[in-house]
């Protein structure tokens, strides 16, 4: 059946849990593109036949192939775009330098997209003001651990503890 390979691409991503990037399925993509080429050429010849030879009975088949072509394209673009979103998440998770294991799962073009994205993000962060801008990939969690335990001599904190400013942590 048509579009089987395209569906497989989508299913592959659907199975991979959020955040995981499976290896780029170059083979699968190539097969989908080949199928599209074959469908298109068949349609071309049928369209000619229908026009010149008056074979209007070919029209449903032409329409069907066209739908398959659209479906193939939709699945392909969804596959590629979803991978880009996962790669984008990697920048926020791992920072500028990706672990090798992940890099091997990316195609050369995906790497290029990633580098462009990094550059764009860096330019934006630098523009946020001050000398070096603001690195918004830091400070991902609210500062909970700031209530640090100080070891202060008792005479310094006694008053503050009584005022309720400090808490004596006994652990």
């Amino acid at each position, binding site marked *: 059946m048509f579009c089987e390979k395209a569906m497989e691409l989508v299913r592959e991503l659907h199975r991979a849990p959020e955040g995981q990037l499976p290896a780029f399925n170059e083979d699968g993509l190539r097969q989908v593109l080949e199928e599209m080429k074959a469908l298109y050429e068949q349609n071309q010849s049928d369209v000619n036949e229908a026009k010149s030879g008056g074979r209007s009975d070919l029209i449903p088949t032409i329409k069907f192939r066209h739908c398959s072509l659209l479906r193939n394209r939709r699945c392909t673009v969804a596959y590629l775009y979803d991978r*880009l979103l996962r790669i984008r998440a990697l920048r926020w998770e791992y920072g500028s330098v990706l672990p090798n294991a992940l890099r091997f799962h990316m195609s050369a073009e995906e790497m290029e997209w990633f580098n462009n994205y990094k550059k764009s993000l860096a330019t934006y962060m630098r523009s946020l003001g001050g000398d070096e801008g603001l690195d918004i990939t830091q400070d991902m969690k609210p*500062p909970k651990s700031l*209530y640090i335990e100080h070891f202060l001599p008792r005479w310094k904190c006694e008053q503050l503890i009584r005022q309720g*400013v400090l808490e004596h942590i006994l652990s």
Partner: protein
Amino acid sequence: MHGRRVSESSAGAEKFGWSRAGLEQFALLSSRFQVPRLRPHELPVLTACCSGVPRCLAGRRVSIRFLVSEKMTEEPDFLGQDSDGGSEEVVLTPAELIERLEQAWMNEKFAPELLESKPEIVECVMEQLEHMEENLRRAKREDLKVSIHQMEMERIRYVLSSYLRCRLMKIEKFFPHVLEKEKTRRDGEPSSLSPEELAFAREFMANTETYLKNVALKHMPPNLQKVDLFRAVPKPDLDSYVFLRVRERQENILVEPDTDEQGDYVIDLEKGSQHLIRYKTIAPLVASGAVQLI
């Protein structure tokens, strides 16, 4: 007024050994840090706080110039100079500035679409952070004061970073729509993108389009090589429901209910009340500041 608040919280706090004076101090200060309806895991637990507004924050007033009817053609003036007559200058204390930042942050977090950009708040907060850092460098090594000021700085930096991250995420998620909205924006209408965000959005679009073209589209049949990203990428769901608190009383808000059986009806929003309502209905009120998303 203090008495009442202390008695409400004393039941829980007294078991931790807080004195009455300590409680009063805490109540006074926690009102300064109070941010409405934030989920517990998102806010630091306030167990210690400094007495009074940190000195690094107090004492420096911030001037934000809002140009009323013309485009923002110049940088906000921090020195409070009054150059042209067509601008309205709003002077904020640092505490007010941080409050505005927190309001913008919450609104952005809970709104389904990208809201108006607030470059003046971002710039002023960055400036405040720089001043605080300078003060810290100059201050003597008094452990306690230094660490409390650092606390404040990290907290502000977190809120600002979270706000900007939230915006970037929406820009990336809805990039064709965001760019289209900017393209069709009329002069004088406020933009939802700062110039830097606009550049980022454009680069993101170009990057993605080029990638898709080179990897797949150019290998496809000629009549299928163009993909309209505007139609392919989903729009923000303006029908999603949001929680809000009313800051300024509103009358005669038209509500369109979900089901067809009920007709449209009109409600008034009382000041201080809280509602769960479809975002689309109250979107302009968020922009004007009449309601606060929570």
